[in-house]
């Protein structure tokens, strides 16, 4: 229970800090880089290292590469939905989650066989 409390606190702080830093940056396209900051990863890996060890964290890092490429596809899709179809941000970001799941699990299955 304590572990998950720590995760919640560390994740909340990391995500808020990166998001606030990104908010204050201009131009917007540069600020967007912080939308793909490793906030959840940093919080998770620190705790994973102490709880499950480095080999477990290494496999998470390898999978994270597939997740990051899925995030690139997701963000690009959101951009297209907003610019071309003029969807609201909430709708575009929700619809595009489908792309993240397909690319992330597709790449993971192809490269790591979801073992």
């Amino acid at each position: 229970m304590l572990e998950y409390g720590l995760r919640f606190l560390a994740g909340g702080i990391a995500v808020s800090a990166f998001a606030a830093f990104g908010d204050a940056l201009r131009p917007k396209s540069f600020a967007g880089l912080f939308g793909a900051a490793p906030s959840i990863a940093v919080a998770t890996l620190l705790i994973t290292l102490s709880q499950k060890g480095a080999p477990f964290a290494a496999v998470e890092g390898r999978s994270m590469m597939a997740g990051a490429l899925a995030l690139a596809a997701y963000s690009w899709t959101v951009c297209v939905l907003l610019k071309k179809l003029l969807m609201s941000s909430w709708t575009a970001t929700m619809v595009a989650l489908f792309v993240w799941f397909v690319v992330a699990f597709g790449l993971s299955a192809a490269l790591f066989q979801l073992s």
Partner: protein
Amino acid sequence: MIVKFKPSVLRQTRWYEYLFRFVLGGAMTVIAGLIAARFGPVIGGLFLAFPAIFPASATLIEKHVRERKEKAGLPGARRGKEAAALDAAGAALGSFGLAAFGLVIWLMIVPSPAWALVLAAVAWLAVAILAWQVRRWL
């Protein structure tokens, strides 16, 4: 184009919007941990790059830009969407930095955990900025 840091913009964000992001970020970190514990590190690792707070951030950007434009008597709906789209384009470029972060963790965390975290953070920032710069040149 010069990159600027404008802390005054932070006053536009209300306290409950900060709280919402904190709770969402914390909850997603807990969920990522639960997924890794239940399904193993291969599936768990994917969720370290899940767009957890992206919907909330994009919605906030659209709302803030729309409100600012409408306050100035300008039509804000389209400008709000454009600002959120620009942010998403930046996130797409930043994702390559996130992949570099994962690569460094994968290769280095077993022999040298502390250095792996430091170098992964440096790799994330360097690759993200490089991708953004290359996009501007093209």
